């Protein structure tokens, strides 16, 4: 690991999990692993990004993701500006492009963007000179969520010394509203890059079109997949999908695709249960599952900060040289 692991020219942005090669993804996980040891010490703030400005540009409410990025940037001593659409000029119809130009004038070294439109982060990257980190764009991707999920899997299932390692042969089952899930898209791409075997489980109405072209398998039968899963990742299902006739009722959805204690018992001994949050307890995941020792939901949150620190650090290296 010498020279420039993330050449400034190639990776100024993190828009899609597909942008990452295996080596690059492993580098992020390894960097996060080292930072985790920092996080374990009493002094947790690093001077790395001192003098740099990270803007959190959130067009959609997401307190948990924004807070996670904010904590990551602050632990690296960056100046953080939170720019939320609500109550700002964005709410008055300012375009994404004009917002980008405003950020540019503020001298943002990195823009963390959450937007309801797929591709918004991609478009933004064309209008700013700083690094763009996609914190969720519509139903497209959420790459840092996939990275923190992979980090959590490696932490819980990997060998004691995980440095340099991927997730080869780990069997991951992702369950729920895959069609509308940016978390699922990013996870499929990243986990495949890291060597995991991913299976998507959803009712046919919530399975993406052309899923056979994705680097994963697809199944409608949750119970059949449970027995051969090292990881089960439950996706949030939204009530409004019911009114659009994707399934008849929340109760029926929960019966067929929810993870309850009975289903959890089908899992192998070592298997873990993940959820990107926020959870609908009693819908896609039962309370006793969410609170069980198999659940990594709390670890995912703390790992989120560490992985985002790694991403910001690796992207912002050489920022001046690239600009």
């Amino acid at each position, binding site marked *: *690991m010498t*020279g*420039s*692991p*993330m*050449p*400034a020219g190639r990776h100024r942005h993190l828009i899609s999990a597909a942008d990452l090669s295996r080596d690059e993804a492993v*580098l992020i996980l*390894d*960097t996060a692993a*080292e*930072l985790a*040891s*920092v996080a374990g*010490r009493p*002094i947790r703030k*690093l*001077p*790395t*990004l*001192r003098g*740099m400005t990270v803007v959190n540009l959130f067009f959609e409410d997401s307190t948990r993701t924004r807070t996670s990025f904010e904590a990551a940037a602050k632990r*690296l001593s960056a100046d953080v500006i939170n720019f939320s659409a609500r109550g700002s000029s964005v709410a008055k119809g300012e375009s994404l492009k004009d917002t980008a130009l405003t950020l540019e004038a503020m001298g943002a070294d990195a823009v963390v963007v959450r937007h309801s439109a797929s591709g918004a982060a991609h478009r933004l990257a064309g209008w700013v000179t700083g690094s763009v980190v996609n914190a969720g764009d519509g139903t497209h991707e959420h790459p840092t969520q996939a990275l923190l999920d992979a980090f959590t899997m490696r932490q819980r299932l990997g060998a004691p010394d995980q440095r340099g390692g991927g997730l080869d042969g780990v069997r991951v089952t992702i369950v729920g509203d895959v069609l509308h899930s940016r978390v699922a898209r990013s996870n499929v791409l990243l986990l495949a890059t890291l060597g995991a075997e991913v299976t998507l489980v959803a009712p046919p109405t919530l399975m993406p079109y052309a899923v056979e072209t994705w680097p994963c398998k697809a199944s409608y039968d949750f119970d059949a997949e449970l027995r051969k899963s090292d990881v089960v990742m439950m996706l949030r299902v939204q009530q409004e999908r019911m009114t659009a006739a994707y399934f008849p009722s929340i109760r029926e959805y929960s019966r067929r695709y929810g993870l309850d204690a009975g289903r959890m018992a089908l899992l192998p001994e070592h298997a873990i249960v993940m959820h990107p949050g926020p959870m609908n307890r009693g819908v896609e995941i039962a309370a006793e599952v969410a609170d069980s020792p198999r659940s990594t939901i709390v670890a995912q949150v703390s790992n989120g900060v560490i992985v985002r620190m790694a991403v910001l*650090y*690796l*992207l*912002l*290296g*050489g*920022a*001046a*040289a690239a600009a």
Partner: protein
Amino acid sequence: MCAMRPEPGHEQGAGHPGWKAVLTPEEIRRALSRVAHEILERTHGGEGIVLLGIPTRGVPLARRLAARIAEFEGTSAPYGSLDVTMHRDDLRLRPARALQRTEVPSGGVDGKTVVLVDDVLFSGRTIRAALDALNDLGRPRAVQLAVLVDRGHRELPIRADYVGKNLPTAYREVVRVLLEETDGEDSVLLGERDR
């Protein structure tokens, strides 16, 4: 191939065309022995010292110094590594580097005499970063610095307490330290930048 490897002379680095060998393996060995003796002398027999190597090549150097000290004194000197990457001040200018390990011996650094170990002392910025990084680990009683080569051109008020070899260089020159543990051979080479 059966190696009839000529002992690298001082005029040309064997197997490194264009580079001049400035320290032979034997000279490196002797320099480290001398530094180990000096450390023992200055710290009253190595009492309460912790050797922390700065990755990459400071780490094996710290390990070697610890081995010498154990050899000379019969007591083991705790050693570890201190990654300074996240404390560097040149992130804007260079691509981000992969983080290296920070491993502190179980006794920690509080109240200890920490000897930082690095291969080459140049601008002093790495040592500045190391002092900051060390600050996050605890509060040593004293911090000292041991380097294999001091090539000059300091940009900060930093000096080494122990120097294996003072090597006056021109600014445009490059010093490469090769070690068995990381590079398969022991050698210090001098060359020109932008070759």
